[in-house]
C-alpha cells in the first residue's frame, strides 16, 4: 500500500552533469527510500545538478521534506545543486511553515532554475 510516486528523468541541453527529475504523486514515509535511492544514484553517476520539477507532486510530509533537505545538502557537498520548481501552493505552505523554504533552492519557473545552473 505504498503511496504512488513516479520519477522521470530528462537531460538538459548543454548540461552534461545536470538533469530535470519530474516528480509525480505523493512524497511520504512509504516511498522516501525509493526516492532517496534514485536521486543518490544520479549523484553517483556524476549528475550532481538536479532540478526537481514538482508540478505533479501533490503532497509532501515531514519525512519527504527531510529527504529534500538531505538532497540539497548532499548535492552542495558534491559541488552541485538541488533546485526545486513548480511547487503547488499546499506543498509550498508545508515547506515554508517548517522553516525550510530558506534552506532549499526554490524557483517559480523551470527556465529560471535552468538559467541558475551556470
Amino acid at each position, binding site marked *: 500500500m505504498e503511496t504512488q510516486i513516479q520519477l522521470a528523468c530528462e537531460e538538459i541541453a548543454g548540461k552534461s552533469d545536470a538533469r530535470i527529475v519530474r516528480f509525480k504523486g505523493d512524497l511520504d514515509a512509504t516511498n522516501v527510500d525509493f526516492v532517496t535511492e534514485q536521486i543518490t544514484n544520479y549523484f553517483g553517476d556524476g549528475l550532481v545538478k538536479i532540478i526537481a520539477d514538482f508540478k505533479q507532486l501533490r503532497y509532501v*510530509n515531514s*519525512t519527504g521534506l527531510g529527504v529534500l533537505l538531505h538532497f540539497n545538502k548532499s548535492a552542495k557537498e558534491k559541488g552541485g545543486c538541488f533546485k526545486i520548481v513548480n511547487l503547488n501552493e499546499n506543498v509550498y505552505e*508545508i515547506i515554508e511553515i517548517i522553516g525550510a523554504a530558506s534552506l532549499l533552492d526554490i524557483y517559480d519557473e523551470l527556465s529560471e532554475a535552468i538559467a541558475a545552473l551556470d
Partner: protein
Amino acid sequence: MRIRTGQAMKNNALTMEISSHEGGAEIAVLRIAGALDFSGIAMLSNFFDKITAENRSYVVVDLAGIEAICSAALGEFMGYRKRFVERGGSLVFAGLSGNIRSKLTLLGANKIFSFYQDVRGAINAYKWDYKKQSKSLTVAFPASLKLVPPVRQLAARLARQKGYSVKDAFRIETIVDEVCNNAVEHGLHGQENLVEMRVAIDKEKVDISVSNRSDPGKVAALKELIKPVTQGGGTHVGHNDKRGRGLALIRMLSNDMDVNITEHGTSVHVIKLREE
C-alpha cells in the same frame, strides 16, 4: 408524527401538506404539488401561519411535485424566509426540477434561497449549519507506515465532503499523516498493536485523536523527544535536524495540540479550526 392541516388542501390542482416528523421539533417540511400561482397564495399563507404557530423555524419547501410557480408566490416565500431567519432558522427549497430551478434562478431566487437536491439533504444541512452536528470517523489499523496514507486520505475526503476547502483538507491530511506516522514510528509495531485514529468534524473545526501502545521502557525518552516542540519552541528546523519536524508541523498547522505519554501508550489530540 405526520401532521396534516385537517387534510391536504387542494386549489386548482394545487396540493400542500405539512410533515413535521422529518428531522426534529424545529423543522417543518412543506410539500407542494401542482401549479402555484397567485390563487394559491392564500393557501400558502395559511400553511405558513400553522408552521409559525407550532414554533418551527426551519422550513424545507419540497418542490418535487411542483409544475409551475409564479413570481408573486416567490415573493411570499421571501417574506416568510425573512421571518424564519429572524427567528434563527430559514426557509429552503428542495427537490427542484430542472425547469423550476431555471425559472427560480432567472428570478434571482438562488441568491436568496438555498436549493437542495432533496428533503434529506436540506435536513442534513440544517443539522450541520444550525445544530453544529458533527460527523465522526474512527479507524483502527495495525502499526505500519504503509497503512497511514489511506487513513490520512480518508480524513481529507471527509473534510471535503463536509464542505471544507481543498487547502483546509490538505492541512487536515497533513496533521493526520504526521500524528499517525509518529504513532507508528514511536509506538509498538506489528499486527497486534493497533493505532486508533478518530476524526470528528463539524462546521467550524476538526477534532483529531490518535492513540497507540508504547514500550514502557521508552516513555522517558519519548517525553524528552517532544519537549522542544510541546514546550513552545522548536518549530523551525535546520539542514541537519533529524527529529521533530512532524510534531513541529502539527503544532504549526493546528490550533491546539495535546500529547499525553504514559506507560500504557501515547495519545495525541489536535484541534484544527476551519480557516476557509
